[in-house]
């Protein structure tokens, strides 16, 4: 894959290479964060100095279906030793699904000084780079966070309903079988309880993985434009909503549209199909 700076991204600073990370392992202004679906991966070996942010344990409210609040985020930030000025580098499994998901949650608290390591954990490992089981010793920091801001990059059910009633741009990033309603869950994944199959009316189907190369790195801007602008006709200046099953795959697409293609207003609908497909009375297309 070509150098990140030559790929034509709108905001190339949001993406760093494995080389870039390897050269900064001892930089105190940088905190490397691994975020995975598989809870065994980080303890089995991680980038030296990296801390773990677990999407279930650290990012979600333990009772409500919601993200952590201000106090929870401040405690998390303190635990992983960051200040608002720290550059946070996220990486993880599943072509960085969970890394982009964690970055998205951090941006809900306006921690914008955050980047993704292109290719994620698999690329680092396959390049033969060091992985350690030694957990770093982190000095807790003091982090004063703002209240979580759900108004900019997060979409809720009622907002999505208004969005589709005004023919707003909507991207369904699930598999084609989920989009068509043939399956109620992702190919290769178990059923997770949606009562109805199909998609939100007006949505275009672009599975998240089309934005990634086989090695987990992101496609270049021309390739991404061919998919999102030319193929399904999205207008980067218009508000756009991305959704999937619970908001994790769509955070990958949110990252692509926002940072790599420079869309002005992209929201991740984290309620996604597990909310929409179970809600009484909401419109559905097949």
């Amino acid at each position, binding site marked *: 894959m070509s150098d990140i700076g030559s790929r034509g991204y709108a905001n190339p600073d949001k993406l760093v290479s494995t080389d870039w990370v390897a050269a900064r392992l001892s930089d105190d202004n940088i905190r490397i964060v691994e975020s995975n679906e*598989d809870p*065994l991966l980080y*303890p089995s070996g991680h980038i030296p100095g990296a801390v773990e942010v677990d999407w279930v*344990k650290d990012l979600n409210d333990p009772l409500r279906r919601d993200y952590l609040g201000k106090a929870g985020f401040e405690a998390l930030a303190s635990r992983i030793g960051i200040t608002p000025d720290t550059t946070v580098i996220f990486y993880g*499994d599943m072509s960085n699904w969970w890394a982009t998901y964690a970055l998205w949650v951090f941006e809900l608290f306006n921690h914008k000084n955050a980047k993704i390591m292109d290719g994620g954990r*698999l690329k680092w490992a396959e390049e033969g780079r060091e992985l350690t089981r030694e957990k770093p010793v982190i000095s807790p920091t003091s982090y004063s966070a703002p209240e979580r801001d759900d108004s900019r990059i997060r979409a809720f059910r009622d907002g999505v309903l208004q969005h589709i009633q005004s023919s707003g741009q909507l991207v369904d990033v699930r598999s084609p079988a989920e989009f068509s309603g043939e399956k109620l869950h992702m190919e290769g994944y178990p059923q997770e309880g949606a009562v109805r199959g199909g998609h939100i009316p007006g949505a275009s189907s672009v599975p998240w993985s089309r934005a990634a190369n086989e090695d987990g790195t992101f496609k270049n801007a021309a390739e991404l434009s061919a998919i999102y602008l030319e193929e399904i006709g999205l207008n980067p200046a218009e508000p756009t909503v991305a959704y999937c099953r619970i908001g994790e795959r769509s955070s990958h697409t949110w990252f692509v549209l926002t940072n790599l293609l420079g869309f002005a207003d992209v929201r991740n609908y984290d309620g996604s199909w597990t909310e929409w497909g179970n809600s009484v009375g909401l419109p559905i297309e097949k």
Partner: protein
Amino acid sequence: MADYPAKLQEYLDDFSFITSREERVDYLIAIADEFQPVPESIATKPYDEAHRVIGCESEAFVWALERADGTLDFYFDVLNPQGLSAMAMSAILDQACSGAPLEQVAAINGEVVFTFFGRDISMGKGRGLTELINAVVYQANQRLKSA
């Protein structure tokens, strides 16, 4: 109701005493390190899709071969190199179920996944691992029906 295979019960007893996430994870990683993929004498890639565990995103495959005494030897592979949880579950099932009485294997409840991995794994991961157990249970049931 049949007992569980002795080795499985031993693991379940071990995990029931675990109180910290760190201890649980360390134990599971140690088990995953013992994972041995199916030998080429049994199966070679690309594997027959009939052996794929539907619902396991780590791309797990299961084979069951009958021993002379009528019990089964189970073999596994996990194609996702980052599928450590699936490797740990496969190693447990291999050690616990190969050569165990079929009635005991058939009696395994998929809920044991949560004794091993805890309740704070994602729903998708939990159910994927459950499908791995179900694939083994299915093989035992098939042999019992044909016996």
